[in-house]
């Protein structure tokens, strides 16, 4: 079983997230310190015998001087952290578009040979130690892109493009999820971010840019025919086949993705079959109907065909 991907603000894996993580820690510890100091004073005041105090010292010292000093220090620290977060213009950044859908993520890259754009879904691949220029938007309701280990939340607003510059520093897999309520399955709209070494990322992009490759054999061919006979091409694209549907995720390399249904299920032949004919029981309200039009062995052939698209 795979180990779980990291999804934690305090486990930063990028240049921006480590600044935010440190800022969060400083604020939490500082606030806790002030809280306990004030509580200690209050308890002392409640339990000690009444006696006169120098009001001006306490009111001016405790109410004006100390807060001004503390907040001034915090302000300077915060401004420095904020300026460290901004990257300025990046001409060599890897451009990736992420579009929030109901309830999944469309991810678009420029093809490895520069010949156009390729689409994928629910999984974002990035090279470590390179800056990625993510363009975030939506074509329906507002979503929010949040990968806690890599960056803070950025909203995906219909009709508007938000930009997020990511600078991952550690290879690994990180989980993110939608952080703005977007309807029935907002809670099942997650994604995996896979950070590769730059060489591995290049290999991945070359493979992903290629059209679908499927093995030969009767069973797989039967599965491919089941894809078309069931009407799946109405909504899905498989590059290299006549399937050019635009409503659902691109399935050209579905076999190599880690999950199905926007990180709702592991991805293997069993869950693929269960998803195709029973999606409304797994993720009710999804825009994909349960495609219960297949005989048992036909369904197995279809699921095996899709898993072969690596």
């Amino acid at each position, binding site marked *: 079983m795979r180990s779980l991907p990291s999804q934690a603000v305090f486990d930063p894996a990028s240049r921006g997230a480590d600044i935010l993580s440190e800022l969060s820690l400083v604020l939490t510890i500082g606030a806790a310190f002030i809280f306990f100091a004030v509580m200690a004073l209050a308890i002392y005041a409640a339990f000690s015998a009444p006696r006169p105090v120098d009001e001006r010292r306490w009111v001016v010292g405790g109410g004006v001087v100390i807060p001004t000093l503390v907040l001034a220090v915090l302000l300077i620290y915060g401004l420095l952290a904020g300026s460290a977060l901004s990257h300025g213009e990046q001409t060599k950044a890897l451009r990736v578009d992420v579009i929030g859908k109901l309830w999944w993520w469309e991810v678009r890259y420029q093809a490895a040979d520069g010949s156009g754009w390729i689409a994928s879904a629910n999984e974002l691949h990035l090279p470590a130690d390179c800056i990625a220029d993510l363009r975030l938007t939506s074509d329906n309701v507002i979503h929010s892109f949040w990968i806690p280990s890599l960056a803070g939340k950025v909203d995906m607003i219909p009709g508007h493009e938000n930009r997020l510059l990511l600078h991952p520093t550690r290879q690994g897999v990180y989980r993110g999820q939608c952080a703005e309520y977007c309807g029935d399955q907002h809670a099942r709209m997650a994604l995996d971010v896979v950070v590769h070494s730059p060489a591995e990322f290049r290999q991945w992009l070359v493979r992903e840019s290629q059209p679908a490759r499927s093995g030969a054999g009767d069973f797989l061919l039967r599965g491919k025919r089941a894809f078309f006979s069931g009407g799946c091409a109405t909504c899905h694209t498989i590059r290299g086949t006549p399937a050019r549907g635009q409503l659902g995720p691109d399935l050209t390399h579905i076999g190599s993705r880690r999950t199905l249904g926007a990180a709702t299920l592991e991805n*293997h032949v*069993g869950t693929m079959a*269960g998803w195709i*004919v029973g999606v409304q029981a797994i993720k009710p309200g999804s825009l994909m109907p349960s495609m219960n039009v297949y*005989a048992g062995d036909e369904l*197995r052939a279809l699921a095996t065909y899709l898993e072969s698209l690596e």
Partner: protein
Amino acid sequence: MSSVRSQAIVGAVLLMGGVMGIAGCIDSAAPTVRVVGGDPRAGRLLTEQFACGSCHEIPDTRRALGIVGPPLHTFARHVYIAGELPNVPEQLVAFLQDPPALVPGTAMPDLGLTEQQARDIAAFLYEVR
């Protein structure tokens, strides 16, 4: 009513209640089946790991509300596996390892289970009554 008679009535009621209570403790269903070398706890974890719940309803298992295959709530008492195979341990362990080989028309694919994994899951399913 005399005190002896009322005592007799109370005693009779208690005796009947006790007998009925004990009778309720005797499991009148089929005897529990055991799978040799199978660990039911490991089997339950395996059903989560392989996401069997994407197709089946399974008790005590996370995210197991699938409606593609039959619900498994009382599986230990089912007579057939997949409507065809007699529900006995040898058949279940073989079925789990390669469903289409035993039931050609089944929608359940070969999930690549090892024999040990199949034994553990079978042991878990035979506790599900």
